């Protein structure tokens, strides 16, 4: 559940009731020497704004995004900036992107947007660019280097030579478990750009990468997957502290590969369950430590939400604001060297999945 948020060190108080005072910004001693400010940013993702006809849009998805925006605006002290993690639209239409952008325009603070496949495959991101600028770029904030990638690209052949219409191409990529789909990738051109971008940095600089698809291979059938994930990881691996934050999966996931931590963010639209493996593809799911409560069909917002991301000592603590549910925090544990689901490490703390009769 959402709670009043203060700047705190990553693990202290995570999961406990928040203090109600506006604390001064704390200076944290960095693991790699020196001092740097802790800070927080807001992460909203996967709104899937969907046009029915004319000025009529799917109410449920509208409500999810509106609610996230309204609540994010109440955070005190204010977040440093906001990330939208992709899939603003459902079918990439100008009307959908405009409608979503209008809702997002109410956000306080600077907005950075990540490209999702639902935003891209109608006009290959043309209109999206008019709203949000380049598909990939980097920026620096309070000693942390942030990289925005477009990780939902696929082969030239599939993109340009397979489908009779742009609409058909969009529909094929929007399908889940669709054998006509194609695995996502970052691609050569962007990886070259990434290598150049990283070349300027000290290996001790904390890095946060925003992508829409996971930059790790989880489940190909649903494109919980990036085909050149290993190549991207290899570019990031030399750095001491790398954090990848991705959307697309509509569920809480976290993982550690070498120095790279992975955190997913929730959708505001609807939740996906963990996919069941099927015969044609091996499943590479991270170990499931706590089963997520299944969405209650009555509460449309159940198992959806938004996040506050704390950056402390160059590592991420993702604080999930879950509607009609308990707030969860997945934070990097410096002792363990990987992210942990803070409230659920103790078996006694775990909530059993709901039983329906």
């Amino acid at each position: 559940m959402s709670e009043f948020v203060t700047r705190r060190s990553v693990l202290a108080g995570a999961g406990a009731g928040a203090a109600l005072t506006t604390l001064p910004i704390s200076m944290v001693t960095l693991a790699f020497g020196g001092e740097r400010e802790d800070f927080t940013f807001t992460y909203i993702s996967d709104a899937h704004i969907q046009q029915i006809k004319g000025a009529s849009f799917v109410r449920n998805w509208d409500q999810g995004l509106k609610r996230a925006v309204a609540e994010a605006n109440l955070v005190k002290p204010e977040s440093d900036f906001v990330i939208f993690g992709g899939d603003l639209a459902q079918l990439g239409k100008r009307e959908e992107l405009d409608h979503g952008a209008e809702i997002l325009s109410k956000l306080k603070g600077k907005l950075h947007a990540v490209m999702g496949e639902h935003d891209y495959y109608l006009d290959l991101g043309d209109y999206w660019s008019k709203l949000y600028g380049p598909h990939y770029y980097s920026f620096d904030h309070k000693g942390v280097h942030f990289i925005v990638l477009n990780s939902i690209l696929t082969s030239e052949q599939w993109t340009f030579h397979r489908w009779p219409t742009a609409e058909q191409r969009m529909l094929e990529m929007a399908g889940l478990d669709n054998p006509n789909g194609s695995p996502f990738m970052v691609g050569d051109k962007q990886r070259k750009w990434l290598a150049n971008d990283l070349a300027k940095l000290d290996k001790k600089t904390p890095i946060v990468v925003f992508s829409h698809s996971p930059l790790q291979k989880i489940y190909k059938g649903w494109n919980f997957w990036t085909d050149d994930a290993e190549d991207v990881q290899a570019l990031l691996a030399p750095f001491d502290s790398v954090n990848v934050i991705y959307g697309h999966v509509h569920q809480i996931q976290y993982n550690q590969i070498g120095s790279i931590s992975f955190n997913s963010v929730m959708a505001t639209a609807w939740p996906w369950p963990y996919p069941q493996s099927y015969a044609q593809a091996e499943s590479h799911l991270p170990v499931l430590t706590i089963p997520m409560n299944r969405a209650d069909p009555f509460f449309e917002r159940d198992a959806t939400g938004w996040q506050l991301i704390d950056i402390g000592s160059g590592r991420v603590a993702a604080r999930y604001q879950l509607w009609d549910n308990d707030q969860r925090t997945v934070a990097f544990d410096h002792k363990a060297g990987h992210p942990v689901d803070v409230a659920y490490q103790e078996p006694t703390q775990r909530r059993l999945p709901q039983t329906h009769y």
Partner: protein
Amino acid sequence: MAVRKRAATTLAAMLSLSELCFAGAGLAEPLGLPPLTIPQDNPQTADKIALGNRLFHDLRFSSDGSVACATCHKDDHAFTDSPLRTSEGVGKKTGTRNAPTVINAAYFTSFFWDGRSPTLEDQSQHPFLNPVEMGLPTHEPILLIARSDPFYVELFKKAFGKTGDGVTMEEVKKAIAAYERTIISGESPFDRWRFGNEETAISEAAKRGFEVFVGQGRCVSCHVIEQNQALFTDNRFHNIGVGINRAQFDVPRLSAEFLNAKSKGVDVDKAVLTDPKTSELGRFAVTDQFDVIGAFKTPTLRNVAVTAPYMHDGSLKTLKDVVKHYNNGGRSEGDPAQVNDYLSGGIRPLNLSEQQMDDLVAFMETLTTPAYFGAKTR
């Protein structure tokens, strides 16, 4: 169907009920209600219940001697102050909240519209001190009377074995709660139809209304009905658009101001009852959690036909108004065109026909316990 006397409030009924509770039989519950849980540290006894009854009705526990618990929870108004929109306290001061019925409150898991109190015992102490309710500066005047009035001296001794300074607010709270635990009622026409298999207990319209209640209306999602009993509440908090729709544009300022005031130690109890705008923050004022902004507790629907007006602020006059509000996806006449952004995910337009809405009202009218058929609501 003969109208019985309000059995729950006669001493004889209290005696028999408390004996059953004593025996731990758990079988005393009227048709349609689950077994009642009695706290281990506050067992029901006839003396304690009689004492609580007297405390509940005593006007002297208010700053000007004009207000008792029973002023807003009147026995003959199904334990509400219907038809008042919001309750009147000392000096005719009005608060921000509509008095909920005490009937079956024994089953709730939190108290007040925003759930800021966890037990009946805890709840009972707060209205005494609220400036717009009973207006006492402290609980001392209550204890002075409790320790000196011969009737009370005798009863506190019988009920708790305590006299003089041994009598504290603990005993007062326990006695009031014990009395309130006798105010339970089921056996409505609905109960006889649903749990007693009496086919003719309710009308055809009400039966159709029940189908809307559990089907297209989705009312049952929060107003819970179980296999063998029904409390018509999930004991949770939901933003259904009442009050908060009108305050929606002030939420950023209100929430920031309230949290700031709370951090400086403002009394939430007073803040939500005396400041209409703060009141609309609902459960948020208790938990500071954004997803319960404008959310209030799901009330039971038992006896709802005799406890008008409706909602935390008494803003809806009739059951039909309530049904229309839900049918509009959480909007009432006079609300802004846009529902508030914090609306519960369970609220959406229902597309009910006029007939379905009337049937729903007919269904809700079957939830009245015979003892309250004659409750004064106008």
